[in-house]
């Protein structure tokens, strides 16, 4: 089937920052995004797990955004402004999508 080159950007970020990140993505005019729950993790700031939480303060989510390659830089810059001072991770992969008109 006909596919089209795109970029898959996966941003792992604290749950308290989710709405700020998706606002930034919308400003960067992405066509959409998908939010996945995160159960736990580990990094420089230590280990955590969802069942060890009384609050959202340490929980994280993963925001996945598929975009046209030429829009990647805009997106990364917008996302970075939000992510910069916070813990979290941005990871970009090449991908092929069906129905490119959607992106």
């Amino acid at each position: 089937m006909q596919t089209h080159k795109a970029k898959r950007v996966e941003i792992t970020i604290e749950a308290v920052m989710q709405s700020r990140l998706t606002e930034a993505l919308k400003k960067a005019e992405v066509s959409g995004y998908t939010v996945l729950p995160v159960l736990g993790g580990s990094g420089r700031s230590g280990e955590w797990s969802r069942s060890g939480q009384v609050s959202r303060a340490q929980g994280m989510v993963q925001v996945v955004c598929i975009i046209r390659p030429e829009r990647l830089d805009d997106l990364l810059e917008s996302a970075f402004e939000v992510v910069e001072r916070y813990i979290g991770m941005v990871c970009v992969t090449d991908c092929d999508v069906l129905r490119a008109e959607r992106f």
Partner: protein
Amino acid sequence: MDQILSLATTNLLSPIILCFVLGVLAALARSDLSFPEAVAKGMSIYLLFAIGFKGGVSVADHGIDLTLGLSLLAGIVLSALLPFIAFFLLQTMTGLSRLDAAAVAAHYGSISIVTFVAATSVLEGSGIAAEGYMVAVAAAMEAPAILSALWLISRGAGDGDDRRMDSTLMREIMLNGSIVLLVGAFMIGGITGAEGLAKIDSFIVSPFQGVLCLFLLDMGLVAGRGLREEGAVLRPGPLAFGVLMPLVGSAFGLGAGLLLGLSTGGVALFMVLSASASYIAVPAAMRVALPEANPSIYLTLSLGVTFPFNLTLGIPLYVAIASALTGG
């Protein structure tokens, strides 16, 4: 003294405290016992709703006191004031950075609603009445401490960096789920009164203590896990602060309660609120506003040190003092 001891013993051997202890021990022993996040959140919704509703009904029953407004005001002032005291103590007693100290201070100005709930159930067990609107005071004390802490930091920063508090964060803090639920339930209780309570009391009154047991079991698991994993961040200074600060806070609460002429229960609850430290609303706000502050420090202090201290020794102490000084 005798009363303190007997209250403390009764308290320590109540199912509620033993459940908390079970949770801590299970976590320290690395058991995989855990509550699903959804269940924990469901229980906290239940507790907030029940405590808010009952507070509202009690206000509807006793009429709106003249002191209600003054109590709210006192709560706001205390919440805004205590971070400064905490900050000063932290700078004196510990080697924490300004940033970490401010973040910790915010927690101690704000309140722990579960400590409040546990205190109400101790009061009930001892047959001591309290003003129903103390629930509203609790809600009022959640947020002001955050502003004080941010002010402390922005004052220190000196540059344009003081825009850490934006309107979005402000709205998130003021309208966070716990406050809205607590205040909303309080108002519903106030509107429907005893008649409304009669309809739902077998839901929000009878099973209350039991749900609180399970909830504290979960809190124990979380606190224990925190201590196991992050306990190392607690050097003696912060540790001492975690026990001293609730005592200092409770003294201010005592003063406020006596000045306002509250009942024995009301004074005790004011002490509890001032002595308790937040671990829900404030940590979330700190992650947004002061991401560079180390969450291990403030979470471990508030949830791993001060919460257990208040739950086990603090509450009976505050109740005993309030009883003694109000002749209750």
